[in-house]
């Protein structure tokens, strides 16, 4: 499907093409760790710089190294294209391919607070949020409940997704590096527009065991313009959002 025209996406593609994208050494291959669109300290004080640096340069880089190993010798395809059949493809693609997609998706939906605070949902996204959850506040409340340690136990992600039909938003959690794009993970494949990493590595240095505090602070760095773009893409294409790297 044709990707909707977007000046922001054009800029991103140019930046991605020009930048030296591999932040950490690893096995060369089809996939690379995309540079963040903001400095490591950009999401302070909500997400600390040391966490951003290790999360990006170590954890994400390891997923990239491992998915490159798992796809060695195979045709190069965008990481998005590996998601649908990830369970069938095996643990290498599922865990490391999923890890690469999820983190690439995560970095770009966030922005420094002074930028993020000026963003808001598009009319389309606003309408879908109200229809699906009642209101933005109710959506956030339900999201935080879904992300709580007793609700998403262990490692995983919480997502807001556009459903198959494109007429409703769903709130879901997935374990480890699974995501809603993978057939067999949820009752039906759906298309994430917003996601939150609740693996302990995402918050431990600053928040230790206090995951709820991390989750409620995170709203301060959500870029609603990007989330709205993700929403339009998913609704128009009935497909997952492409990511850089």
């Amino acid at each position, binding site marked *: 499907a044709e990707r909707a025209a977007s000046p922001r996406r054009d800029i991103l593609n140019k930046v991605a093409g020009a930048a030296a994208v591999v932040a950490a050494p690893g096995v060369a291959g089809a996939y690379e760790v995309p540079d963040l669109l903001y400095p490591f300290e950009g999401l302070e004080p909500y997400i600390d710089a040391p966490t951003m640096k290790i999360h990006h340069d*170590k954890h994400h880089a390891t997923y990239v190294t491992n998915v490159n190993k798992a796809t060695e010798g195979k045709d190069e395809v965008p990481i998005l294209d590996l998601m649908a059949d990830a369970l069938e493809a095996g643990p290498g693609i599922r865990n490391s391919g999923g890890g690469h997609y999820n983190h690439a998706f995560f970095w770009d939906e966030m922005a420094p607070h002074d930028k993020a605070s000026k963003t808001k949902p598009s009319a389309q996204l606003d309408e879908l949020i109200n229809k699906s959850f009642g209101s933005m506040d109710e959506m956030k409340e339900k999201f935080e409940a879904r992300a709580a340690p*007793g609700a998403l*136990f*262990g490692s*995983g992600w919480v997502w807001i997704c556009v459903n198959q039909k494109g007429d409703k938003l769903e709130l879901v959690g997935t374990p480890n590096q699974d995501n809603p794009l993978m057939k067999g993970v949820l009752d039906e494949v759906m298309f994430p527009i917003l996601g939150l990493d609740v693996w*302990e*590595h995402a918050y431990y*240095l600053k928040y*230790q*065991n206090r995951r709820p505090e991390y989750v409620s602070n995170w709203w301060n760095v959500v870029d609603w313009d990007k989330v709205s773009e993700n929403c339009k893409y998913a609704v128009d294409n009935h497909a997952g959002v492409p990511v850089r790297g």
Partner: protein
Amino acid sequence: MSATTKLLNPALRAAANLRSSALPKDVSKTAAAYLSAAPSGGAHTLPDLPYDYNALEPVISAETMTLHHTKHHNTYVTNLNVALEKLDAAVSAGDVSGIIGLEGALKFNGGGHLNHSLFWENLASKGSSEIKDGALKAAITESFGGFEDMKKEMSATTIAVQGSGWGWLGYNPKTGRLEIATRANQDPLQATTGLVPLLGIDVWEHAYYVDYRNVRPDYVNAVWDVVNWDVVEQRLAAAK
């Protein structure tokens, strides 16, 4: 360490596989003995560590031990008590749906309490414990070929756990052999596999992130230096 004796809850004792008759004095005084419940089956409590918070340095820092014990384990204990209260209410009301609905909370928090209680017990300060010739060593040799073989296999398997979980050396009561197993999240070993836990290694990120960041292999390789082999030996004896 409190001088008061506490009752050992039979169910938890069975789960930790420490028959009171088989408990040597040393073990009975240590943390595992405090897997206790008040006589009416009431609240579980956080067991004291059998050593100071800094005892496992430099392998595991005092900071990690403090967070791990007073925050993570403590939360499992608190939430287990909440879940058990709800279970009592549901059982009393004959609310089968409510009983089943508590399954997750009981497994998470009960498993978390069991696993961590076992974990503190099977650790000891560096240099204070070594594996001796005896039943444990013989069983390891029989089941894995040798002590180093077992360590290598258990390290690799434990490091490879996806996301949060545990690596275990367990005793299979049906075969009489030792096995290595991993469990996701806080799934308790014996309840879910029938293997009796002898030695556990926590690989939730909270167990090692402060000291090792993302480098789980360094943590798992180092943790062998702080294993309490006497406890592992005693658990095997109690299991047979």
